[in-house]
């Protein structure tokens, strides 16, 4: 019983800790429209970000399985990290193939000089090794990181951003993602 109470109190304490201050949004736009949005890991988060861009009147194309050719005539790349095994099984792919697809996209974006924005909506719910690896893969080649985070995940994003000298914004919930996302373009 004591263990259970400690578990619940611990969870509540970790969840209620406030995030340290991060950049609320970019001071100036770093990307241009039209954006290519894809999801790294086949979660539904890519579609959500696309829908957000639509609401923000940011011209975008969403492709859950976008390939390098899809980057032609696009001026920015938004990669939403959300590794879902069921999602990957749904299109008969796996984590290795997804990593390769994302690496190819990042390489092409780098070649074309297209800014890359990484978005993570999973908070603690998708906080497993596959997602962390994908975040590291995308993060190192990103120009800006927007993530929903708790205190638990904050250190990871802070370290990732500092190591690669990337600007980042951590928010508490999904509704607050729109402000930094809008600041990328406007």
């Amino acid at each position, binding site marked *: 019983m004591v263990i259970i109470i400690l578990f619940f109190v611990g969870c*509540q304490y970790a969840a209620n800790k406030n995030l340290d201050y991060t950049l609320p949004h970019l001071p100036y736009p770093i990307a241009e429209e039209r954006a290519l949005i894809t999801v790294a890991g086949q979660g*539904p988060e890519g*579609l959500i970000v696309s829908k957000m861009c639509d609401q923000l009147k940011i011209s975008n194309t969403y492709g859950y399985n976008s390939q390098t050719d899809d980057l032609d005539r696009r001026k920015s790349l938004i990669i939403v990290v959300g590794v879902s*095994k069921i*999602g990957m*099984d*749904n299109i008969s792919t796996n984590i290795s193939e997804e990593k390769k697809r994302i690496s190819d996209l990042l390489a092409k974006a780098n070649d074309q000089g297209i800014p890359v924005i990484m978005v993570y909506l999973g908070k*603690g*719910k998708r906080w497993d090794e596959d997602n962390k690896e994908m975040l590291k893969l995308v993060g190192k080649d990103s120009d800006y990181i927007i993530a929903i985070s708790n205190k638990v995940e904050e250190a990871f994003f802070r370290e990732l951003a500092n190591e690669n000298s990337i600007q980042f914004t951590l928010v508490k919930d999904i509704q607050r993602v729109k402000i930094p996302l809008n600041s990328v373009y406007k």
Partner: protein
Amino acid sequence: MKKYWWIVLFITFILVSYAIKQLTVPFSDEILKDIESSITNTNIGLLVMAAVKSVIYESINDLFVYIFAYSFTFYYLKGNKLIYKVILAPILTIVLYTLNMLIHGSITEYAILFFIICCELILLIIFDKHEEYYLSSIFIFIQLNFAFYSLLITTILNDYKVGYRDLITSIKISSDFLGSNTVLNFVSLSLFIPLIIGSILLILLTILYSRRLASEKREKEKERELRLVKSVAEEARIWQELHYLVHDLKSPLMTVSGLTSLIKLQVNNNHIKDYCKKVESAVDNVNDMISEFLNNEKRRITAVEELLKIVRAHVVVKGTEPNCLFEIEKDLPLIKINRIRMARALINVIENAIRAVKDREDPQISVQIYSNQENELIFIVKDNGVGIATEDLKKIWNIEFTTKSSTGGLGMSFVKKVIENHQGEISISSNMGNGTEVMITLPGVKDYE
């Protein structure tokens, strides 16, 4: 093969787990489509539908693990102490749950498992030693499983690591975007509360029902004992009345005896005197019989032939009766018996045999009498009748036991009592459909007697 049953069980578990995974793939694809549609059309209704479907999906995937662990504990440790079940059930459930998650390649989430194990333990404790309620307990367990799995979609328990599975996470992220967390919480609790209340009511009903059954069983047992006591009292009353009746016979017999003596004195006809002597002799015999009947302890050294004469006089072969074959060894020891009671006992056994063979096309009854080295007399009454069922054989000596509708059931009970009063033994063996054999052993008269 029997030695490796657990390997077979383990392989079966893996195959079932894999089969369920494959069978539920179309269902998960459908849920993903619902989630995408809900985002695209900003439709909360579709998301709620996806949430309910995902609860069913997750339940189906894990349910067999819980039923497997519960059933294995329930039956493998049947008759063992409850503590062993309480230890084995959680361990087995955690191991199988982890194995199932590895087979499915999904994230292992132990928060909900904690509640399921609690339910499993409660059910094991409640239904311990009530194997007849296994199916009821499984039904309640399934209901509880659905109740707790409905908590996966609530966002209230997010901080407690509940609902971190792949599909559920997708639903929760979509719900955050659509602002439908309140709706999801409401749906979750609307499933959880009625299911939990239903389960508790079912448990209470099952307990009440089991208690009622136990009480009815006790009542029946008491009724049976009461019947037994009544039948013993009835037997005693019958014997008492029989004693009075038989005793009353003595007076008219004395009158007959006296009058016969008078007739003998007053007539000179030799024929009539002979007849009177025969009447007196017959009256003496009847008197002796009455005395023996009235006095159980009255024993007389008797030859087997003399006893059989009385038996044969009663078990007369009436033409329609089966053939009764007597095989009697020569030079049998004498026995010290109450002739009337012993004859009645043998007659009972033979009459039972006659009844048993009455529907046979070739009815056969044999009565074998021989002695053994211990100077004991052995009677074997064998028939090729319908036989006696094994469960009836145990009850055959009970006072109220009978297979006939017209008698009170004192037959074999009386026989046993008489034989045991004579320091004898009786045993019975029977094969259903092949006949019955009754063996009676009586001690022979010792030289000093």
